[in-house]
């Protein structure tokens, strides 16, 4: 084979740059620039009276001492530990069950669980808002038929988190399940056949053989979940009027940032909240990536 000259090799390599450039330009303009800008304006302050002035880290110090911000961050942490494990367990269980070959109509179950991903969150909120209605909602209607006392699904902050978790799990469990199912499909079947010959049942195969190989995929869904759950916004924002003192304007950091920006007219403080949220998410996502590298050996990121 004739090899290329050094200069044409170099120019070939440089062509790669041209392939990447269009994406990279827009990437910088629409991701890096706003991110940096967000950090930049968080160092300033502008009120209804008086103009723009540089205040250094004052906004951050205010934020750390702001009981509403602290409350919102605590809440999304609690929400993360509540919603994500349950959702991932459901996703893993469903993926394993469908892959086991012991289920009748696996395609039907796959579609059924995945379909809610096609539903925009706002519509999910409208539907679940009615289902959770205090006096005339569907769930309480069912409870009424069973002569059980009505439940106020938004009764207090923790209960509201539970209700919202049910909505978000409904929305995303299918998405995570498909990721895991695709991973399962990629595993070699020799091990199962060997185990089956040895007399292992489907459940044992699932738990002992398939599950450990799923760890990289599970970590992927975990990272996606970290990024998603800390950004909780649509559900509490839309359902706010169902329980204005519980689903209030500082329910999650994003809800708080929106309220501070557009109602409170404090754009600099809102940028501070958004920017710090980004830092928190990046921090935990990176930790999860590092842990997954050590655990799974293979890593995706």
């Amino acid at each position, binding site marked *: 084979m004739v090899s*290329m000259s050094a200069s044409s090799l170099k120019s070939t390599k*440089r062509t790669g740059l041209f392939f990447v450039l269009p994406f990279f330009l827009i990437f910088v303009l629409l991701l890096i620039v706003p*991110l940096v800008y967000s950090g930049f304006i968080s160092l300033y302050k502008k009120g209804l009276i008086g103009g723009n002035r540089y205040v250094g880290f004052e906004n951050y110090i205010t934020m750390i001492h702001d009981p509403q911000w602290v409350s919102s961050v605590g809440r999304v942490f609690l929400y993360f530990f509540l919603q994500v494990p349950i959702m991932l367990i459901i996703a893993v269980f469903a993926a394993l069950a469908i892959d086991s070959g012991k289920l009748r109509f696996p395609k039907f179950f796959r579609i*059924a669980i995945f379909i809610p991903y096609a539903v925009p969150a706002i519509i999910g909120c409208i539907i679940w808002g009615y289902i959770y209605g205090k006096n005339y909602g569907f769930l309480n209607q069912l409870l009424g038929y069973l002569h059980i006392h009505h439940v106020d699904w938004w009764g207090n902050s923790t209960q509201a988190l539970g209700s919202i978790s049910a909505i978000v799990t409904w929305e995303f469990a299918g998405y995570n399940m498909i990721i895991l199912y695709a991973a399962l499909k990629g595993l070699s079947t020799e091990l199962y056949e060997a185990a089956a010959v040895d007399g292992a049942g489907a459940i044992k195969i699932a738990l002992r053989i398939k599950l450990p190989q799923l760890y990289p995929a599970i970590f992927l869904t975990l990272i996606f979940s970290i990024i998603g759950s800390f950004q909780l916004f649509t559900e509490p924002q839309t359902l706010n009027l169902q329980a204005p003192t519980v689903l209030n304007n500082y329910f999650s950091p994003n809800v708080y940032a929106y309220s501070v920006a557009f109602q409170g007219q404090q754009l600099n403080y809102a940028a501070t909240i958004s920017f710090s949220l980004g830092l928190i998410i990046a921090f935990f996502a990176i930790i999860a990536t590092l842990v997954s590298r050590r655990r799974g050996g293979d890593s995706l990121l």
Partner: protein
Amino acid sequence: MIVLSTYFIVPLFWVIAASTKTTNDIFSTFGLWFAKSWHLWSNLKAVFTSDNGIYKLWLMNSLIYSISGAVGAALLCTLAGYGFAKYQFAGSKAIFRTVLGAVMIPSAALSIPTFIIFSKLGLVNTRWAVILPSLVSPLGVYLMKVYSDTSIPNNMIEAARIDGATEFKIFRTISLRMLMPGFITVLLLSIVGIWNNFFLPLIMLSSTNLQPLTVGLSIWYGRIAGGGSGRDANFQAVVITSAAVSLIPLIIAFLFLQRYWENGLSLGAVKE
């Protein structure tokens, strides 16, 4: 498994049944079955004629944003992924790692500063305000790089080079064909993501003609839940029916294109 599936299906069944009822019936009849009177047609009519038929505009906007944003994003991702996979130019590894790190940046952290920047540029309340940010998909670039790595043999490219073809011609005639399944995967992921997007269009668009379905429905929902004079309690039936109708496009797309989905997501989950 059956119990599990009921959890996922029941809410959808409820909304379909509810769209056949009047507002009063929604609260007095059993949620999962129909009322004595059948109002689906009048509800549907109300959905499409309320507010001078704005629902049709919202539907169209969602389609415009999803398709144009997704096609643009998929193209950019494909080009970039191919570039990262097949060429080792100076800094390519560093740039790729930066792009990957960007997956962790929450889009919500960017929306408000992007709003401020766009307003200074006069882009707020235009279609570009929604389409431009949708073009950036770091995850799509990652998927396309992995796909390029695994599905395009290097010797084919070398052979074409020896024949004297330019890099871009190689890409256009050989590589693109092999990348198609990956392209479609990123396309579909983007379509769903843009279709479901709520926060970005909410803050960028105030003209109702430009808003997508997600924002439009939140306005209608707010109308039955809003305060003061001007609330219309009977509008609830319209809101519920419009929610039911909005489910149809994406669900149809899903059912048809399931196959591509799994292929695509398997790229991310399994490393060669």
